[in-house]
């Protein structure tokens, strides 16, 4: 794998309530790759993304962004490293009461000192960059509109512009199209693809539809119950692998005890 931009080494994570989200994951992500992350809900995909940008500190293992070992670094160092990674969310997570433009400018916060940013003293370059990005995602006409007046697809495009405003080397997209209609989904996926192809920004994208995975991704990483069960090219993702990911004998075994308790209640 050589020099990966992101390195995840032997990472395990257990939440405070005891849930094991990840168990000894080792992965590397290169610049310029479009990776789809698949797996059933609760497999640990979202947690892995937050481990990669340091929003979640893993209970065990090491995570590197470039040369920075963020898993053990002080908060300020993690923040510094995090600026190279943009994030896009399932529910868009725009600050609803701010305009589209102000939301994109949030991507510039990391480069501003706290006083300037509190007073919203964004420089002209920052404003021009933000406007340019809105234009790129086809949202320039909505720059002055409040985020909560936009449709889901429009909000997600502003969300991508916000991530791009960080001028990142990697974008993490946590189920970016799950809340969108097919047409908006396609627009959003195409924007992500063009970012990857034209700007050489790596994209890691949590996805549910295997058709979408096949259409856009170069590489597929599959998680199940916090474990890495597949890592390879899209071509190698066989029907068999994907089927076993979502439907298998484990699942029926899991259901049985629940049924049993329901039956005992019924008695």
């Amino acid at each position, binding site marked *: 794998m050589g020099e990966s931009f992101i390195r995840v080494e032997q990472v395990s994570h257990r939440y405070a309530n005891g849930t094991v989200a990840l168990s000894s994951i080792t992965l590397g992500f290169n610049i310029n790759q479009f990776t789809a992350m698949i797996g059933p809900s609760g497999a640990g995909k979202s947690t892995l993304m937050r481990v990669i940008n340091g929003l979640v500190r893993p209970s065990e293992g090491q995570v590197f962004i470039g040369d920075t070992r963020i898993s053990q670094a002080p908060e300020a160092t993690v923040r510094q490293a995090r600026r190279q990674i943009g994030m896009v969310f399932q529910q868009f997570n725009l*600050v609803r009461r701010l305009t589209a433009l102000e939301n994109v400018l949030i991507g510039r916060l990391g480069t501003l000192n706290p006083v300037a940013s509190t007073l919203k003293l964004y420089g002209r370059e920052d404003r021009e960059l933000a406007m340019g990005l809105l234009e790129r995602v086809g949202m320039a006409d909505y720059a002055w509109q409040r985020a909560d007046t936009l449709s889901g697809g429009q909000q997600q495009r502003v969300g991508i512009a*916000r991530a791009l405003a960080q001028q990142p080397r990697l974008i993490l997209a946590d189920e970016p199209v799950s809340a969108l209609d097919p047409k908006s989904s396609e627009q959003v996926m195409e924007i992500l693809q063009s970012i990857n192809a034209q700007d050489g920004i790596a994209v890691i994208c949590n996805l549910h539809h295997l058709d979408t995975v096949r259409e856009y991704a170069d590489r597929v990483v599959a998680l199940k119950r916090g474990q890495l069960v597949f890592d390879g090219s899209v071509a190698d993702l066989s029907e068999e692998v994907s089927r076993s990911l979502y439907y298998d004998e484990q699942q029926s075994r899991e259901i049985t005890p629940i049924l049993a308790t329901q039956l005992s209640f019924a008695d």
Partner: protein
Amino acid sequence: MAAVVVVLVWSTFGTELSPWRLLTGLAASGRFIAEFFPPDFTRGSEYLNSMFETIKMAVWGTALAFIAAVPLSFWAATNTTPHSLVYQFTRRMSDVFRGLNEFVLAMVFVAALGLGPFPGILALAVSTTGTLIKLFSEAIELVDVGQVEAVKASGAGPLQVLTHAYWPQIVPTVLSMTLYRFEANVRGATVLGLVGAGGIGLYVTEAIRGFNFQAAGAILMVILVAVFLVDFLSAKVRERLS
């Protein structure tokens, strides 16, 4: 329901609650109120000035409370407090401040600082700080965590997260609660003069103690009109905020 009846019955003992006294009292009050008419406005401009002083007291009492409550409420919210001890401390402080009525506080501040509007302002500020901390911190606890996470994920620092993710979300509540407290403080400030803490209350006591009921009538009318106006304007502003 039974509990309500028990409390109501229990509360009649020692409070001299009697329908007969209410009736005779009503008649007496009626005669008393009749003496307020026609209101005597010969010192009208003085009353008006004093009413402005009352409103100014409410303005500063509310403004000081706002300045104190904004940072303190972040300490008093479970999701933004730096430490559980800080949380406990600010919450208890808010309880104590709210527990003390501004009238009682005014007596304390007048005793400590002497007569005048300044102790009145402080009294309003302290009790309002307590209320605003509680209301603001509850608004902070209702903030959408998704928006907060997104701002954090951009590499923003802790202060930037407060100013760009929390603040935009709580602004409408914060401003409307502050205006609402301002209205209450205008009403509250009208009685602080009774303990010498400034405002129009002084004229009310003066007039009633001197059996100058027609003057008292004029003062009460000034108060009523002012309070109505303040409530009306403040409600208009709050409407536009939401």
